[in-house]
């Protein structure tokens, strides 16, 4: 689905990378190139050099739902309902179809009660959930979540994970610092020093990280039982 070849952009350097459909967790230290890679996949930035295609198309030709890491930067409109409806309005969705779609996605996210709230009064975690709802309302081909769960409590993170398990998009790229979340993805890519160091199933990738803080906490507990 996602194919990168000889891709170079700022500190990022990828010789060859293929990411199939499903849920892919992107992990790695701060500054390792994760967000840069996600921005290229979303078409927010264009690569200085190399090829990046999604289902054979340029990233900007793909319907992508993007939830960035800074909650304040994700929200543009005054109320939560307007924020979630915005993408549908830009797509000229018929007006009578917008309200049910907005209510449905807010309900799925467990935040229907926030519908009439003004965005600037929301907490950081609530803003992250609203940004997810706005991305999901568009039924994207590619859903990109950049450390969205860093702002969520256990219950809210569980809601997000439940939604991801329903596969709301054919391809989901989730950058996370929660290794237990990454361990439940279909595949994991570990970035370090600007390039993917390990790619594979969670078992394959975490076998390289066994002696580090990045090994999933629940797997460590399971070893002691």
């Amino acid at each position, binding site marked *: 689905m996602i194919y990168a070849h000889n891709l170079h952009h700022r500190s990022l350097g990828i010789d060859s990378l293929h990411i199939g459909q499903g849920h892919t967790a992107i992990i790695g230290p701060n500054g390792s190139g994760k967000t840069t890679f996600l921005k290229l996949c979303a078409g927010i930035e264009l690569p200085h050099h190399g090829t990046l295609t999604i289902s054979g198309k340029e990233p900007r030709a793909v319907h992508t739902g993007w939830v960035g890491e*800074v909650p304040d930067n994700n929200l543009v409109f005054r109320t939560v309902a307007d924020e979630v409806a915005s993408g549908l309005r830009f797509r000229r969705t018929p007006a009578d179809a917008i309200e049910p779609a907005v209510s449905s996605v807010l309900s799925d996210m467990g935040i229907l009660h926030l519908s009439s709230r003004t965005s600037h009064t929301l907490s950081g*975690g609530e803003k992250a959930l609203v940004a997810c709802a706005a991305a999901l309302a568009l039924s994207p081909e590619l859903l990109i979540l950049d450390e969205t769960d*860093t702002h*969520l409590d256990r*219950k809210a993170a569980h809601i997000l994970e439940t939604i991801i398990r329903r596969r709301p998009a054919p391809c989901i790229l989730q950058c996370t610092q929660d290794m237990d979340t990454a361990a439940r993805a279909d595949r994991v890519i570990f970035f370090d020093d600007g390039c993917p160091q390990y790619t594979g199933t969670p078992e394959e990738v975490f076998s390289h990280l066994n002696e580090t803080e990045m090994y999933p906490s*629940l797997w460590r507990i399971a070893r002691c039982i």
Partner: protein
Amino acid sequence: MHLKADKLILSHGEWTLSADGSFRKGVHLVTGPVGSGKTTLASALAGIFEPASGQITREGVSRLTLSMQFPEYHVTGFLVKDEIRSWHLPVTETLRKSGLEGRENAKTLTLSRGELKRLHLTCLLGNAWDAVILDEPFAGLDCREKRRVCTAIEERKHPLIIIFTHEQAVLPAADHIWEIEEGALVCRGKVPEAIPAWKGAPRYLTRALEEGAQPENIRLHDATEALCRMHD
């Protein structure tokens, strides 16, 4: 020494949070759901949010600071070296502690989110305070950096530290657990006695409790040690 919330009521429109309790010397962990008021309470304890009623009293706390959830809000220096100097800290040593060697001339706001958080926390914890209030200090940090922040907290250079967090994997040893529940701040008590009553405990800790383990503190290391002790 203490920082006391005395019959405090905080409100935004129809939303309210009540808090009545005393934060004494040690490391306090406060957890609660998204939107429960962690940031508002942290701000009130720091004196930058006016309560609707009640008061905050301080005894033996003259130097108090708040680390906000989003490190961008703290930036005052255009370049990284200016930012470090604004905290009255040596540039080279602070860059080394932040893992940002050679980045002194980078524009502060061009650092990645995690790098900026690292820089901010190194600067803040590098100063001397009687009380430090940390709002989501682990958000945006990678696992190694979360552990480094925990180590800095566990050094106990600052007598009173209050941490507001929903971190689920890397936590420091704590002395007291608090939770925000149904619009009120609730004290779960001292660690380790408070651990079984802690509803927002990380999954690794609840998993260890389910197995009958009795961790001495709240870190992953404490949970695995308690489990290993059971099998010895």
